[in-house]
């Protein structure tokens, strides 16, 4: 059982230059974890619902969706379906996508299993949040001692 919280993982993701916020939602559009600057929770839920609904709709035309990349005047929204959830990242328009891809690979390695999502979802529902761990352990985990980080599969832009 992972001992880090999803919020911690998302905050690590947010430390990537150009990343302004991120969330993970389940296939129903329920926000499982989020690390955004103060924002109305209802709006985040609204965004998550719109996102997962659009993925469902698009699959009829283009098959399983691997990644979405929305570009705006000053921002960029990148979404990546992962097993049992969808990851949404708000970035500045100048974000380095290669760097973002590497950061997402780390996130996906940590949380990209339906069991992990389900556990976090249960924690969120019960109000417990994720189990905390020693921050030093989190740093050591980033070292990827096994050297088996998954291939970057964001493949956007």
């Amino acid at each position, binding site marked *: 059982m992972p001992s880090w919280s999803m919020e911690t993982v998302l905050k690590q993701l947010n430390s990537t230059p150009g990343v302004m916020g991120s969330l993970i939602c389940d296939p129903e559009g329920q926000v499982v974890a989020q690390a955004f600057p103060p924002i109305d929770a209802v709006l985040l839920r609204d965004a998550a619902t719109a996102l997962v609904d659009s993925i469902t709709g698009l699959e009829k035309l283009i098959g399983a969706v691997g990644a979405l990349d*929305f570009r705006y005047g000053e921002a960029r929204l990148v979404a990546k379906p992962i097993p049992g959830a969808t990851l949404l990242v708000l970035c500045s328009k100048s974000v380095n996508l290669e760097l973002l891809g590497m950061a997402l690979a780390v996130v996906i390695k940590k949380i990209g299993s339906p069991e992990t999502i389900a556990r976090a979802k249960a924690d969120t529902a019960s109000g417990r949040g994720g189990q905390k761990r020693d921050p030093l352990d989190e740093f050591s985990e980033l070292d990827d001692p096994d050297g088996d980080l998954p291939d970057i599969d964001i493949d956007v832009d």
Partner: protein
Amino acid sequence: MTQSDDRSKGPADPLEGAAANLSLPDVIAQSVEFHFSGCLTVRYDDQVGRIFFRAGEIVHAEQGSASGSDAFYDILVWPGPLSMSLEAKVASPRRTIRVRATDLLAEARQTLAVHGPADSEPTDVEAGGDARSSMSLLLKKLRGVPGVAYVVLMSKDGTCVEDDSFQAEALAGQASYLSMVANHLGTIFQAGPVLSASIHGSNQHMLLMASRNYYLSVLVQATAEVRAVEAEIRRTLTPIR
């Protein structure tokens, strides 16, 4: 260009001697100027197109299964080499073009400026109804970009431009929905309206590009590199900006 049909060089032909070494648009312009009546036959590879004139007005065009202005513009963008022949006093079987020849020619010049040499004069895809035929040609051009499976140009209310096929309707519907979601997310995150989007799918990919009045929606083959296709599409669009 070659003049392959000697019948075009009779005394009744106002273009006698004039068409040699002229481009297709020039031949058409001459036909209009000299109030030509008859048929201009254009051959490209195994394709044959015919443009009918009546007293200098273009009244009908046909090539393959297409007719009217669509056929006219199809013929116009054949890359060549072309073989052209003029036959005077040949009446059109029907009238499918009612636009004034001078207007059609102006449109043709504009179209060729878009699809001709790289140093052509630019035109404006946002020009509105008068640019519809240009848009039709633009779509043809975009559909020829390697990796592109289908392209639809649609107004921001989701209406397809110059394409009423089922495939176009389906793609426009998805693109319209996608644009709504993207704009909704843009509002939530205070990012403004979406400028472009790319979606990677297992069967196909999808691109959405926004202009002031239109969305361009592109289905990209799964085996194609989306980034490269998008770059080529933007390159194709650049001259008309």
